[in-house]
């Protein structure tokens, strides 16, 4: 059916694919799963030399962005391995650490090395596995061996990246308890809130200070 279209390519005489080759190509392309030679023969008819067709296609696609490959007797097209970097792109997204993450990180930083149970004891709240994963993914926390107590729990510590990110030259730069107290950072949230409320209350009563006589 195809006119004999010869074309010089890499010193090999390349012939345009005939309809058997084209059918094989289309079948492999459209199939939702890799095809066995028997399946291809069934689709194309016994007259078609599937083996030769596959060899031809494999050669046609050798240098392309798509390759024809065989895995365990089944054939399929796949993208060339060296193009993978284009198909799986990385996109960087800035994300804010959750409150649980922040607290867990702080506890590790102040108490390291520390096990998960110890973190929970200090936090007073359970620590989800995801929280530690996020901290490790961020590169700020690493497992630092096991504590030699019953159960040999994993213990965690901060990394050099942690110091870099938070602009600390060492963990000793972290403010101590007295510093925290002085900065008002040791007041529980609800009490601090109440203090604020009272403050505004007196302020407002000063403002509309006209008494009821």
């Amino acid at each position: 059916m195809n006119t004999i279209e010869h074309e010089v390519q890499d010193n090999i005489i390349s012939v345009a694919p005939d309809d058997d080759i084209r059918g094989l190509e289309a079948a492999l392309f459209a199939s939702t799963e890799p095809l066995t030679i028997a399946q291809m023969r069934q689709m194309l008819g016994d007259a078609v030399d599937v083996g030769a067709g596959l060899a031809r296609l494999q050669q046609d696609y050798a240098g392309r962005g798509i390759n024809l490959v065989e895995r365990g007797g089944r054939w399929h097209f796949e993208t060339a391995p060296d193009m993978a970097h284009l198909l799986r792109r990385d996109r960087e997204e800035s994300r804010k650490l959750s409150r649980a993450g922040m607290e867990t990180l702080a506890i590790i930083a102040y108490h390291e090395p520390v096990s998960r149970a110890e973190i929970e004891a200090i936090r007073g709240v359970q620590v989800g596995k995801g929280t530690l994963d996020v901290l490790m993914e961020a590169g700020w926390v690493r497992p630092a061996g096991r504590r030699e107590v019953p159960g040999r729990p994993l213990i965690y510590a901060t990394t050099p990246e942690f110091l870099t990110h938070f602009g600390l030259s060492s963990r000793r730069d972290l403010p101590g308890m007295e510093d925290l107290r002085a900065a008002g950072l040791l007041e529980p949230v609800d009490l601090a809130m109440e203090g604020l409320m009272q403050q505004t209350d007196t302020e407002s009563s000063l403002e509309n200070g006209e008494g009821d006589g």
Partner: protein
Amino acid sequence: MTPDEDMPDLFDTGRSAGEVLTVSFDSWEGPLDLLLNLARSQKVDLREISITELVEQYLAFIKGARDMKLELAADYLVMAAWLAYLKSALLLPKAQQEDPSPEEMAMRLHLRLQRLSAMRDCGARLLARDRLGRDVFPRGAPEGLTVNRISLWQAGLYDLIAAYGQVKARNRPVTHVVARRPVMTLEEALARVGQLVGQRLDWVRLESFLPDGVSGALGRSALASSFVAMLELAKQGRVEIQQEAIFAPIFLRSAAVAEDALS
């Protein structure tokens, strides 16, 4: 596939009224559709179609259907009436024609049939194309293009130490101090009003029972509590209340004083 495929050609196949009508009105999408099929049965170019012949065919068809006592949808009958009018108008001498002229009406019908016919052909040609998923196929198992989201976690040193401070504060043994809220309780008010009212001889405004210098939230609380205390004392028969009008100042005095005054 042609658009007429699933529709019997009524006027060619040895037709008997029964056969025609058993398949009848479900096969048409309204009167215009029926008219178009009748027009096509004339086997001439739609541009050459004779409107009068078409009208006759339609009216004959409707008459046949009614003879079979088939219920006809109203729009078929409206179309029949309109066509009958059109036919009579076409037969009248031109001088007596009104506006719009029957020729214009016929032309309008003609244009509508042309347009419907064109769209029907287009629809058929569209559906006969090589369609994706039927005639041509996309890749069966594409790998997909994935975007890996890499999270750049953001946190500042202040957030870190503030979080630690909160953890410590939250879990440090706390002594609960209930903040004194600026209220005057009913008991206080009862005691205060009950005590003060006995020391006065005459009618006194309610407000004068409030502690000195209270204002704001505490002032409002004191006023409300004193008001309730006043009602309670009145109920107990210990005070008398007087108010001239709505929202006017409320006065009270000791019931004992009142008794003394009477005696």
